């Protein structure tokens, strides 16, 4: 016990990401970082902290506020043998540069018949809850996941963040790596404590496209990603007090999507709640529900979703907090299923 405690190294996702990038930069000189304020500042969300000092301005490049140019440039550099890790500061800004992402980064491998690869990582922050309003609080992970050619992953804790970042950098395909601001561990943002976990010092990979059962259970499956996992865990703890055994499944990756893991869990529990901070319609929740029902999994009650309503994210706390998913909403969804 004592020994384990000595070895424990609790890191925030921000630190875990920076450590992963640093380790890969040390062993592979093709890896470099590019984006706004990722240099001396260390990234607005801290995930490049220390890199500028260790690797200098050539490999850790602050860019102009020109997302189309620097993401397009990353595509060109990646196809020329480099491994860029680029940051889109807030995912909400994807609208100014999405062509470079979805029509080039994601498709050039296919367009070239696999002869040209685009081994790059696009890291970007998601999520709200801290009153940053409608252009700085979105998740929109389903928007990325809907469009073919890019992997879309999003860790819920620091252990996964490090392993998935290393896997993403080593992946020969373009990977969109989304980190949720409420899990990130920045001083100026409240941080979910459960996201700060032990992270081994050595480098390791967490495979992209594998979901994980974060908490096993038998009565209901709660499926989520990033913040959704933590809402699910909190709800599961409350449900446990009520004698209900909830299984929480962390998707970790939307593309590839681990449909088998979802089906396996719901086959066991017979009940499904999908939690998502991304918008309700045409998103992740619908996809997960469809995955389960088209597989013919027998259900004890209609599946439920707890997602962000189809509204722009409001600024004022009463409205925003009301609109977010919550353990209470998950429990209400479960209770609805009990009625059936």
């Amino acid at each position, binding site marked *: 016990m004592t020994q384990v405690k000595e070895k424990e190294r609790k890191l925030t996702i921000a630190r875990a990401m920076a450590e992963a990038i640093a380790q890969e930069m040390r062993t592979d000189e093709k890896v470099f970082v590019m984006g*706004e*304020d990722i*240099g*001396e*500042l260390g990234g*607005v969300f801290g995930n490049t902290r220390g890199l500028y000092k260790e690797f200098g301005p050539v490999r850790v490049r*602050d*860019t*102009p*506020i*020109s997302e*189309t*140019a620097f993401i397009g440039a990353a595509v060109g550099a990646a196809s020329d043998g480099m491994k860029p890790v680029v940051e889109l500061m807030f995912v*909400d*800004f994807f*609208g*100014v540069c999405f062509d470079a992402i979805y029509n080039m980064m994601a498709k050039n491998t296919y367009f070239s018949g696999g002869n040209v690869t685009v081994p790059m990582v696009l890291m970007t922050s998601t999520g709200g*809850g*801290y*009153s*940053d*309003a*409608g*252009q*700085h609080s979105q998740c929109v992970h389903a928007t990325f996941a809907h469009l073919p050619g890019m992997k879309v992953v999003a860790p819920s804790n620091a252990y996964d963040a490090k392993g998935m970042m290393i896997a993403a950098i080593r992946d020969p395909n373009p990977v969109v790596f989304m980190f949720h601001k409420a899990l990130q561990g920045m*001083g*100026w*943002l*409240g941080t979910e404590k459960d996201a700060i976990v032990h992270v081994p010092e050595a480098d390791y990979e967490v495979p992209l496209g594998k979901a994980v059962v974060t908490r096993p259970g038998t009565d209901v499956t709660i499926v989520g990603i990033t913040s959704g996992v933590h809402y699910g865990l909190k709800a599961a703890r409350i449900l446990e007090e009520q004698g209900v055994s909830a299984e929480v499944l962390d998707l970790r990756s939307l593309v590839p999507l681990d449909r088998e893991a979802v089906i396996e869990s719901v086959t066991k529990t017979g009940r499904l709640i999908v939690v998502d901070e991304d918008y309700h319609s045409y998103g992740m929740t619908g996809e997960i529900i469809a995955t389960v029902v088209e597989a013919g999994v027998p259900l004890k009650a209609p599946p439920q979703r707890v997602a962000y*309503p*189809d*509204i*722009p994210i*409001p*600024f*004022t*706390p*009463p*409205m*925003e*907090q*009301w*609109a977010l998913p919550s353990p209470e909403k998950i429990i209400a969804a479960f209770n609805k299923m009990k009625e059936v």
Partner: protein
Amino acid sequence: MIPSQEQEKWMYKHMLISRFFEEAIEKIYMEGKSPAFNMANGPIPGEMHLSNGQEPCAVGVCAHLNAEDVVTSTHRPHHVAIAKGVDLKGMAAEIFGKTTGLSGGRGGHMHIFDPAVNFSCSGIIGQSVGPAVGAALSRVMQQKSGIAVAYLGEGAANQGAFHEALNMAGVWKLPVIFIIEDNSWGISVSKRASTAIERNSDRASSYGMPGEFIPGNDPIAIFKTVGLAVDRARSGLGPTLIEIETSRLAGHFMGDGEAYRPAGEKEALMKVDPIPVMKERLAEVYSWTDEDDAQLVADAHGVVDEAIKFARDSEYPAPEEAMEKVFV
């Protein structure tokens, strides 16, 4: 074009209102955020971009504008909003997230919309320019008076939207003015590190429009140069691009440690804070006395205090109103 005494006083007064407003916000912003600073807490949650130091850009331009003229601004909108005549109570209440806010709390500090004076903004860098071009087009098509003015930062001048909108304004010779507030920083990245040339005003030549650079963060100089551009626009002679040298006296947003600032830069900027500079000028040119000043300062404080009090006293909206106003 030379400002009248009245106009100079108007400018000074609105610089004061803006500064006092920002100071009040700055203070209240920290309420509830200690011991652990968490942006989400306190009466003013979320990001906060203060405009201290940039007041000359607001007043030197808006002194030429009427309520009917359209102004689009950025993530750093307060000073411009105040000079444009945005309802200060409504803006304050919006920043507090109250139901009496301009948008009932849905927008917050980066989404200030006041159609009464044709003011709006966007939190996305570079996205002030397209709507201004469209508003200018609308005035021409409707044969209605009024021009459009788009504000942007020097960092935003490297965003594609800037290029596209200026070209379109140039092709169509629209009554629109582009005001670049060059505070030399885009968050932590300096203009030198991000912009291939020294002056964005030189980029005007790419769009067939005049370009002007105004050094010194000087409201009078701004007034003069912008006056000509406004005349050009109102006379149907087309758009103008103006870059104004200004200074960001605060961090990029509240909570910014500003470790990236070279030592001494901030102190040097503080020494040429445009507010005392303007006060001195009034004293010199118009024999502005300390009593005159005290009166104006008191007036300005009064306006700000009233707005803040209004915001504080107002109610929060009902949570479920979040579902309203998506569509009308």
